[in-house]
C-alpha cells in the first residue's frame, strides 16, 4: 500500500502546468463568448428583418412578450376565458348579484400656480431603508426645513427652520393615506379609497364566497396624489392616479415610484375581470398570466415617473405579492406554493413547502425569470441581490414531523437557477432575523437560545456558515454599522423551570471580524423581569427606527409596561418614549463603543395608571411613533405633539401640538 501510494503520489501537476490550465480554461470561455456574441448579432439581425417583414405584411407579432417559464401573455378574451374556465365547477350566479361597490368619483385636481423651488442638501436623517438608494414610503418624511407627517389628523407639514409651526394641514375625506414620499419639490401621498358594500338578500353567497377563498377587502382602489411643494402654505395637487387593488408596498428609485397593488376581482361579475387604472382597462398587452391554475387576483405593478408623470404598468394574473423584495433593477416576489404540499386527496405529499420566485425587471416591468426554492421566505430582509445574484434565506418546516425544521441559504443566478446553497442550518429552530450585505450576512435563529450565524457569501458556488454564537435572548433586527460591526435589536428571555418567557428588550453590538460574532456590548431596555413587558414597533417594522448614520445615532420608540401586585396593591405603570443610543466605533474600549444616550418622552418618566384608565387613553395620543433629525435638532413625533430637542444635549427646545384629539374623550 505504501509503495503504491508513494509511487502515485509523485505524479503531480507542476505549478506552471496548473496556471497554464487555469488560463486556458478562462481564455477559452471568453473567446467562446465573443463568438457567441457574433452569432447572436447575426441571429438578432435575421430575426429583426423577419419581424419587420411580418409587420409589413400586416401580421401582429410581438417578439418580446415576456413569456418565461409559467408566465404567459394572452389576449383579453383569452384572459377572461382563463378566469372563467377555472370557475366552471362553481355555481355561476347572475352577474348583478354578489358584492356591490359604491363607486366614488375621484376629486379633480385644483388649478395650479407654482412659484420657486426648494433644494435638497441632505442635512437630515431619512427613513431607515433596506438598501441604500431605494427609498421606502413611511408615515413621516423630512427634508431640510420641514417635517411631513401622516396621522389620524391627515397630512400635516411642519416648518422647523426657526420655530416650529404648522405650515399646512390637509384633512382627507374618503381617502385613507398610508405612506408618503418626498422628491425634491414634489410630495407623494399614497392611500386607499374606502368603499362600503353590502350583500344582496337573495344571495346565500357569503359562506360560499369565504369557502371559495374569495373575499373583498374593505377598499379596492389605491390612489397616488402628487403635490407641488413650492408653496408649502398652499399645496397644489398636480396629479392623481387611481389604480385598482389594495395597497401592498411602494418604493422610490431614481425618480420612479414603484407601486404594487393587489386586485381581487369579483368572480361573479365578468366586468371586473380586467383591472382598471384611472377608470380605463389595462391593455391586455401588459397583462401576464402566471399559470398557477387558480385565479382570484392580479398583482399590479405601476411605475410612475414623478417629474414627467409618465406611467408604465403590468398586471400579473394569479401572482400574490407574498414577500416582496426590490433591488435597484429588479422586483422579486416570493410566492409560497401551499398547494404543492398536498396531493388531490389532501394527503401530505411532500416534506416541506416550495416557494416560487418571480423576477420582474423594473424598466420593462416584464417577468424575466422564475425559479423554485425549498422552504418559505417570510420577510423582505431575508433576500438580497448582489452582483446579479439573488441570495435568499428560507425557513424549511417539515410537515410530516413538526419538530424537524431548519434554515437554508440559497444563491441564485440571474436566471434564478441555484448556484450554491447551505441546508440544515440550525435544526429545530426558527429564523428571527437576517441581514445580507455584500459578501457578508448574518442569520439569527431561535428556540431556547439565540445562535447568531455569520455567513460568507464571497463564493456564490460555495456559501459558508459559521458555527454560531449562542447567547440568551433573540435579535429581531440586524444592521451592519460597518463591515466589521453588527448592531442587533431584540428581546431578552428569562429562563424558568418550565422553559423561557419573554423579558425586556435589548440592544447589542457585535464584533464580526473573527470566525464567529463576539458580543462586545449589551444594553437592556427596560427591566428584565417577568412583570415587565417591553414593546417596540421597531421589532417588526425597521422604518420605525431612526437610523442616523451622519450623527452615529440609533433611536427607537418603546413602550415599557410594568404591572403586578406590590405590597398587596395592583399597579400598572407605563413608560413611553424614544430611546436614543449613540455609537462610536473608534473608541478604544468595547464598553464605550455603544452607549445609551438618553430617553425622550412627552409624558412623565413613569406614568401610574393604576386608578386612572381614562388618562391612559388620553396619553396614548402622545405616544411617540417616530423620531426624526433635521440639522442639529432631534424631533419626536406622536399623534398629538411634535417635540424638538438639541441633538447633542437632548434638552427640550420646543413643543407643538399638531392634532387636537380632546373631542375623542370629552
Amino acid at each position, binding site marked *: *500500500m*505504501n*509503495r*503504491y*501510494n*508513494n*509511487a*502515485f*503520489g*509523485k*505524479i*503531480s*501537476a507542476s505549478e506552471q*502546468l*496548473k496556471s*497554464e*490550465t*487555469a488560463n*486556458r*480554461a*478562462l481564455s*477559452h*470561455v471568453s473567446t*467562446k463568448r465573443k463568438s457567441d456574441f457574433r452569432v447572436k448579432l447575426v441571429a438578432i439581425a435575421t430575426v429583426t428583418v423577419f419581424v419587420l417583414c411580418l409587420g409589413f405584411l400586416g401580421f401582429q407579432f410581438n417578439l418580446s412578450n415576456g413569456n418565461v417559464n409559467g408566465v404567459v401573455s394572452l389576449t383579453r378574451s383569452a384572459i377572461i376565458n382563463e378566469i372563467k374556465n377555472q370557475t366552471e365547477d362553481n355555481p355561476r350566479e347572475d352577474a348583478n348579484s354578489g358584492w356591490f361597490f359604491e363607486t366614488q368619483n375621484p376629486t379633480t385636481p385644483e388649478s395650479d400656480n407654482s412659484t420657486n423651488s426648494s433644494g435638497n442638501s441632505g442635512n437630515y436623517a431619512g427613513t431607515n431603508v433596506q438598501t441604500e438608494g431605494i427609498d421606502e414610503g413611511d408615515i413621516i418624511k423630512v427634508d431640510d426645513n420641514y417635517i411631513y407627517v401622516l396621522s389620524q389628523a391627515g397630512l400635516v407639514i411642519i416648518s422647523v427652520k426657526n420655530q416650529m409651526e404648522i405650515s399646512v394641514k390637509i384633512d382627507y375625506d374618503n381617502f385613507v393615506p398610508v405612506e408618503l414620499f418626498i422628491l425634491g419639490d414634489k410630495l407623494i401621498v399614497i392611500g386607499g379609497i374606502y368603499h362600503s358594500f353590502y350583500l344582496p338578500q337573495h344571495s346565500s353567497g357569503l359562506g360560499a364566497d369565504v369557502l371559495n377563498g374569495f373575499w373583498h377587502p374593505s377598499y379596492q382602489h389605491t390612489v397616488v396624489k402628487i403635490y407641488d411643494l413650492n408653496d408649502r402654505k398652499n399645496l397644489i395637487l398636480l396629479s392623481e392616479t387611481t389604480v385598482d387593488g389594495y395597497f401592498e408596498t411602494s418604493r422610490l428609485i431614481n425618480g420612479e415610484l414603484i407601486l404594487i397593488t393587489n386586485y381581487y376581482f369579483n368572480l361573479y361579475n365578468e366586468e371586473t375581470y380586467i383591472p382598471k387604472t384611472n377608470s380605463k382597462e389595462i391593455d391586455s398587452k401588459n397583462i401576464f398570466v402566471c399559470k398557477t391554475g387558480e385565479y382570484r387576483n392580479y398583482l399590479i405593478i405601476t411605475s410612475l415617473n414623478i417629474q414627467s408623470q409618465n406611467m408604465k404598468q403590468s398586471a400579473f394574473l394569479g401572482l400574490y405579492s407574498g414577500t416582496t423584495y426590490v433591488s435597484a433593477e429588479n422586483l422579486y416576489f416570493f410566492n409560497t406554493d401551499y398547494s404543492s404540499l398536498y396531493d388531490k386527496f389532501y394527503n401530505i405529499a411532500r416534506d416541506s413547502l416550495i416557494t416560487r420566485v418571480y423576477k420582474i425587471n423594473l424598466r420593462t416591468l416584464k417577468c424575466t425569470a422564475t425559479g423554485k426554492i425549498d422552504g418559505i421566505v417570510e420577510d423582505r430582509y431575508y433576500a438580497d441581490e448582489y*452582483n*446579479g445574484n439573488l441570495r435568499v434565506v428560507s425557513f424549511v418546516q417539515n410537515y410530516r414531523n413538526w419538530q424537524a425544521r431548519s434554515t437554508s441559504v440559497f444563491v441564485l*443566478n440571474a436566471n434564478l437557477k*441555484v*448556484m*450554491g*446553497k447551505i441546508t440544515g442550518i440550525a435544526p429545530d429552530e426558527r429564523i428571527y432575523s437576517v441581514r445580507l450585505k455584500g459578501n457578508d450576512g448574518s442569520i439569527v435563529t431561535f428556540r431556547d437560545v439565540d445562535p447568531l450565524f455569520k455567513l460568507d457569501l464571497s*463564493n*456564490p*458556488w*460555495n456559501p459558508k456558515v459559521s458555527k454560531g454564537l449562542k447567547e440568551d435572548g433573540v435579535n429581531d433586527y440586524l444592521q451592519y454599522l460597518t463591515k466589521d460591526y453588527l448592531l442587533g435589536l431584540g428581546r431578552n428571555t428569562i429562563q424558568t423551570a418550565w422553559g423561557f418567557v419573554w423579558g425586556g428588550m435589548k440592544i447589542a453590538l457585535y464584533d464580526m471580524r473573527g470566525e464567529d460574532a463576539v458580543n462586545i456590548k449589551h444594553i437592556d431596555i427596560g427591566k428584565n423581569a417577568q412583570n415587565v413587558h417591553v414593546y417596540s414597533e421597531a421589532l417588526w417594522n425597521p422604518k420605525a427606527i431612526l437610523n442616523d448614520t451622519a450623527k452615529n445615532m440609533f433611536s427607537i420608540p418603546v413602550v415599557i409596561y410594568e404591572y403586578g401586585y406590590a405590597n398587596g396593591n395592583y399597579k400598572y405603570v407605563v413608560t413611553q418614549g424614544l430611546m436614543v443610543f449613540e455609537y462610536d466605533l473608534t473608541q478604544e474600549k468595547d464598553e464605550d463603543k455603544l452607549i445609551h444616550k438618553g430617553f425622550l418622552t412627552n409624558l412623565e418618566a413613569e406614568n401610574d395608571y393604576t386608578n386612572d384608565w381614562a388618562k391612559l387613553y388620553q396619553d396614548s395620543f402622545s405616544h411617540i411613533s417616530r423620531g426624526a433629525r433635521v440639522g442639529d435638532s432631534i424631533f419626536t413625533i406622536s399623534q398629538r405633539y411634535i417635540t424638538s430637542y438639541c441633538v447633542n444635549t437632548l434638552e427640550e427646545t420646543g413643543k407643538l401640538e399638531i392634532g387636537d384629539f380632546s373631542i375623542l374623550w370629552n
Partner: protein
Amino acid sequence: MKGITREAFICKAVEEYADMILRIAFQYTQNRQDAEDIMQEVFLSLMKHGDFNSQEHQKAWLIRVTVNKCKDLLRRLKIRQNAHYCGVSSYGMSQDDLEVLDEVNKLPPLYRSVIYLFYYEGYTAKEIAKFLGKRESAVHTALTRARQHLKHFLEV
C-alpha cells in the same frame, strides 16, 4: 458571473483536483503528454459546465469526465498498449516506484483506475461503480483481482 469569481472558481478547482485528474489520466494513457492534455481538456469542460450543488458532486463529475476522455483518446489512437511510461522520470520517480508502475501497468485499464480510486482517493466500491459506469460486482471483481496481482505492493 463576474470575471473575478470565475477566475477564483477555476483556480480553486485546479489547485484541488489537478493532481487527481492527472493520476487517473496517466493510468489510462501511460504517457505524460497525453495525461496533461486530458487534464486541460477536463478543466475546459468544467468551465463550460459551471456550478455544482456540492464539492462531492463536482469531484465525482470530474472523475467521470476524466475517465470518459481517456477512453475516447485510447479508442481514437488504439495504441499505447505496450508503451512504457514515457516522461515518468521527470516526476522524480525512483527505480522502486517504476517497479510498482510496471506491475500496475500489467493490469487492464479498468483495474488500474479502480485500484487508484479505492486506495488513493478512498472511495467505496459503490461510488466507483457510479463514476465508471460499471456494476458494483464488476468493481468488486476488479478489486479482488488487482489486489491479488499487486499483493506484495499493497501490503508492504
